């Protein structure tokens, strides 16, 4: 709200002047719209066995003979319409990506704020944990968490909890950059006189952190968050491609690419190519949007 009031005008202007931003936003809207409205827009429900017809398996895209017009992008080995599986898959990919980013953001911002404002041993502890975590690649941490969860949790519950575990694994691997950014900005803000004024008035440290410091450190966090959504989707796709991500009953874009990969050499290229294009389009447009947002909110670049 405050952010919009402050930046609204400039940001809207910069948005209109940037064809890349407009294009990326349109692509993002198409991707998100297609994903969210999949149950109503998709030609077929790929998870409804009664809708599937094994005789229709391995149908090529509509412009390649011997195609059927109703399968625009062809079908896979079980006769599922590729377009429909992409729309449903994007739903899972986006959902996991956004949820993981929200989790990482809340965790990272909280720890960064505490670390920067309170300082001392707590700060040292949080930042050393962050340093240690940064020495591992994010995908490795996600794999590790996912693997531990698989072993620790009972086998029969894997299906339902696979997605929450995945969100946790991707989220926990990404909190560090939020914590570091917020800690840095908090160190700057807490020495400004408006924070001292609030202390003189008698505000508690918690109130100062939430009401005074937090609104002033959220700008860069929103930018990181947007770009992180793209990274999180890629991480999820990678994990799913490796077979440790979402359960096969609810395939994401990464799962679809893995499934299609098996048929690539036998000539059914459409099964893996179209989910791949969908993933690239989604990630690219979110990324471009994030890049634009970063430039638009950065007063030094304007």
């Amino acid at each position, binding site marked *: 709200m*405050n*952010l919009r*009031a*402050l930046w609204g005008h400039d940001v809207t202007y910069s948005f209109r002047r940037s064809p890349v931003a407009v294009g990326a936003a349109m692509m993002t809207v198409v991707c998100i719209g297609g994903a969210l409205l999949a149950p109503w827009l998709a030609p077929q429900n790929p998870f409804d066995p009664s809708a599937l017809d094994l005789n229709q398996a391995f149908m090529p895209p509509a412009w390649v003979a011997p195609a059927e017009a109703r399968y625009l992008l062809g079908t896979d080995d079980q006769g599922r319409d590729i377009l429909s599986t992409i729309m449903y898959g994007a739903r899972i990919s986006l959902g996991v990506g956004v949820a993981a980013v929200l989790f990482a953001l809340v965790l990272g911002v909280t720890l960064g704020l505490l670390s920067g404002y309170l300082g001392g041993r707590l700060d040292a502890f949080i930042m050393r944990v962050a340093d240690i975590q940064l020495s591992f690649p994010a995908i490795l941490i996600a794999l590790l968490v996912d693997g531990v969860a698989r072993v620790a949790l009972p086998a029969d519950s894997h299906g339902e909890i696979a997605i929450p575990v995945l969100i946790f694994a991707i989220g926990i691997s990404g909190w560090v950059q939020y914590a570091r950014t917020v800690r840095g900005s908090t160190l700057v803000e807490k020495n*400004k*006189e*408006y924070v*001292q*004024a*609030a*202390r*003189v*008035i*008698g*505000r508690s440290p918690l109130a100062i952190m939430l009401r*005074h410091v937090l*609104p*002033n450190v959220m700008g860069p966090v929103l930018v990181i968050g947007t770009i992180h959504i793209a990274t999180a989707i890629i991480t999820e796709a990678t994990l799913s491609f490796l077979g440790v991500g979402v359960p096969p009953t609810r395939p994401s874009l990464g799962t679809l690419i893995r499934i299609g990969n098996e048929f690539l050499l036998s000539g059914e290229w459409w099964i893996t190519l179209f989910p791949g294009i969908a993933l690239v389009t989604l990630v690219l447009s979110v990324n471009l949007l994030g890049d634009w947002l970063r430039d638009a909110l950065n007063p030094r670049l304007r």
Partner: protein
Amino acid sequence: MLSRGEQGPPPLLTLEDVGRAFDVSRPWLNRVIEGTPRQLLHAVDGVSFEVRKGETFALVGESGCGKSTIARLIVGLYAPSRGRIEFDGVRISDPETRVATAKLRRRMQMIFQDPYASLNPRWRVRDIVAEPIRVLGLAADQAEITSRVGVLLKQVGLAPEDGDKYPHEFSGGQRQRISIARALSGSPDFLVCDEPTSALDVSVQAQILNLMTELQSRLGLTYLFISHNLAVVSHVADRIGVMYLGRLVEIADAEELFARPKHPYTRMLLDAVPDLEMSGRQRTPVAGEVPNPLSPPTGCAFHPRCPQANERCKTERPNLIWRAEVASACHAVEENRI
């Protein structure tokens, strides 16, 4: 020693031998490896003075002499390393009594130096001004808060409608007015003003100073006014304390100080002030530089720059000694050499 020879209204604020040291050591690991000891910076070193009800007490001195540290010690942003601070007869400097003295602390507010940093850029002006009212629970409901904020904004020369705006929509002088309105909204009787005009244009400085003087007489406020600008201080102060390197070197009534400065440092500062009367008086620039506060000179901290310094000044630290209404910490003054 403190109030010898002083008369007049009772003190509202008393500082007795207050000191504050900051740990400026390098990190622990560097100290261990390089074998360097801890390093303490004595920003304020044994300062005693009192501020009487209804007066404006000004603290002056060069940058880095500890003026702002004293302001922050008084309002509780820093805890003193030693000494005692009393407000209205109650000791407020103890960490143990913080809760008990919270009510007393509400009676003091602070105006900050930089009007661009002292207002939260994400808050509307009415929320900024209303914050003390809300935190201290001074109003029953939203309507009362709104009306009080309107009155406060009018009091400092802004319109009640300005409350809807954000700080960046105002000029420096207007922001300082908002800052004053916020300080007043907690109904304090004591204001600590830390260089309230030094970030403003000269023409705006006068407006703010006039506003502060007017508010003082209307609301019966007491000011501790911190400045490095002697012209500003001569305009508002009733009494003046001159600081040098964390210590007070002279306390006197404003007129007395400007007419008959005692301490060589005060004389040096006053000689450097440009006079608007164009009397043709030769200005003596301030000689020398402030020594490194990490390793202050022995004896009187001012002796390397002092034209009157002798052997005693180099070895023995002078104490603040009251003579009639003037206190000065100088061997030369004590020995009637100057």
